[in-house]
């Protein structure tokens, strides 16, 4: 039984980017609670109930993971690979939100069955728009198996 708390897991190591993303979510009136992991290890611990998140109910999956690629310790692609390899998280919606638009990153992300790949614009107005559309699409419009 999946518990849907509507949480957004934001995996972002840059505190300013974190704050900007939260601001953008806020100005797009997305009220879902946001959990923040500051590197890949923390993100995996959160999702699998290990390490600092030992004991967390792993059935309580976030509605959406916003995943940066360049992360300390375990990078975003590795996190994505591990999520896809685990039955519990294989279908979890993951959106890469990154500065990179290197072809190799795009290719690898899609090979790992990412749900979406968004490049963060420098222009904050555009960034706001992107985050707003992201929220609308993934939190409101999109349907995911196993949820009512």
């Amino acid at each position, binding site marked *: 039984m999946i518990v849907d708390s509507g949480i957004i897991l934001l995996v972002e190591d840059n505190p*300013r*980017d974190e704050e*900007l993303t939260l*601001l953008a979510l806020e100005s797009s009136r997305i009220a879902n609670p946001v959990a923040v992991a500051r590197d890949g290890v923390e993100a995996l611990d959160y999702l699998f109930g290990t390490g600092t998140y030992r004991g967390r109910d792993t059935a309580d999956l976030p509605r959406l993971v916003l995943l940066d690629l360049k992360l300390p310790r375990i990078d975003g692609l590795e996190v994505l690979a591990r999520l896809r390899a685990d039955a519990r998280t294989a279908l979890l919606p993951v959106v890469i939100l990154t500065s990179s638009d290197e072809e190799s990153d795009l290719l690898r992300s899609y090979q790992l069955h990412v749900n979406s790949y968004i490049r963060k614009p420098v222009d*904050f107005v555009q960034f706001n728009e992107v985050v707003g559309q992201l929220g609308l699409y993934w939190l409101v419009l999109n349907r995911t198996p196993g949820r009512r």
Partner: protein
Amino acid sequence: MMAVTSNHQRRETWRQFLIDAVALLSSSLDYDATLITLANLTVPEIADWCSIAMRHDDGSIHTLAVAHVDPAKVALAHDLQKRIPAASDDVRGVAQVIRSGTPDLTHEITDSMLVEAISDPEVLATMRQLGFCSAMIVPLKARGQTLGAITLVSAESAHLFDEDDLSLAQDLASRAALAIDNARLYQQAQKVAAEHTAVMERIADALVLVSSNEEITFMNEAARRFFGAQLVGQSVEQSGTQIQVRSWKDGAYDPDLFPSRRALRGEVVHDLEWKVLLPDGTDAYLLGSASPVDTEDGNRLGAVVAFRDVTSRKQAEDELHRLSAELEQRVIERTVQLESANQELEAFAYSVSHDLRAPLRSMDGFSQVLLERFGEQFDERGTRYLNHIRDAAQEMGRLIDALLQLSRVSRGEMRPERVDLSGLAHSIEANLHTADPDREVQFVIDHGMAAIGDAPLLHVALENLIGNAWKYTRNSPCARIELSVTRQDAIPVFMVRDNGAGFDMAYVDKLFTPFQRLHAAGEFEGTGIGLATVQRIIHRHGGRIWAESATGQGATFCFTLQPTRKSSA
């Protein structure tokens, strides 16, 4: 003087004479001298006169010897012969015998015969004086050929030759002919051998003759000079050890593979690769060829081996191999270096892409947040300055993106395919109209323009060129952008022409250099990287790009997408 003797005595005389003659004939190979001695031996026991005539190759007949016990008579006979020389077409006498190969016996010479045969009275008188009474001529026949004839004449002795004498004379003649023939054959063989030796000696290749029992019997001059003459007389194996004959390939010593041994087994071998140690201590590379030497009836006499010294060629080849291996190694090293440099560049670009943009986003984002949420705390100047920060951050973002694109067009792998340039241009045109619907720009695009190239790269190139034309025609009243193709030296030249601001040809050199801009940022925005990117794309296709313009006259950019053929003129 020979008296009339009994048949028995005569036979005994002949028998004794033939024994002496055979001994004489086998004593020397100088048959001229031998025949003269033979003629002298004949007189007076067998005949009073003996004359020997030889036939030359041209058919002429030459008297080699005339013998009589009295030298004065010999002189007389010579004198007589000068007056009536034997001619090859004489119907009788020596010429006839030589021609027919059959002996001629005149048992008794009568005076009437002389009168009939001799017209010259002086000669006739001399002949009568000489008193010839009997004569026989026997051919010198060997191996079916008549080499000459022996004439025996009886005079003072008054002996009349009979069939017995004739048959004994024929016996003598055949023995003499055999001796002559042997001597001639020997001389011919000597001559041929001398010629062969001379030829072999002078041949530049080293020639070695090996006997059937593998002994070196001959080395020509080149071989002696090369290997040392001491090898003559040695066995092949002995020599092989001495000069360390080894194969090129593995340096192995295997006498079974020696050219001489293989030739002695009946093989004909060519260009076997051997190396030997020369007397001076250096290695020489040889190509050895050999064939058996057989007699006509198939007896193996030995083998002839020819060695060609290819040391300098082999050394040049080895040097070439070494150089190319070295070059290959260097290419490998360079490739590794290049790959590592490329990887560094990739890592650098990746880092730029990730890390350089993040701070800009903060600068832009927080400035925007300040404006949005704390706008009332700023006056007009404060607001303007915050906007400057945002503009600067965004400009730097564009610069980084342009730089990344520039580096990406050099890094990525090219996948050549047929690219519809006309279609590409139309889609770029559509995008530009969508992005800036207020502009009115007339596009004229040739139909069916196509090229072989990397589609994404060509898209970037056209996007930049058409985008530039779009940008610089902003102030033109009737903006017009043309895309066309012509051919120069059988190669398509594509042209993007506009009627915009143009540029000063004095600065055409700087056009394709990254970050060089010919217009102030306030006049026409831009990163100064677009044309550098275009040029890299064109160069990666092996093509060229150039531009023509004048300030206010519009600009034309021309490019090719394949290497220009070298002019044959």
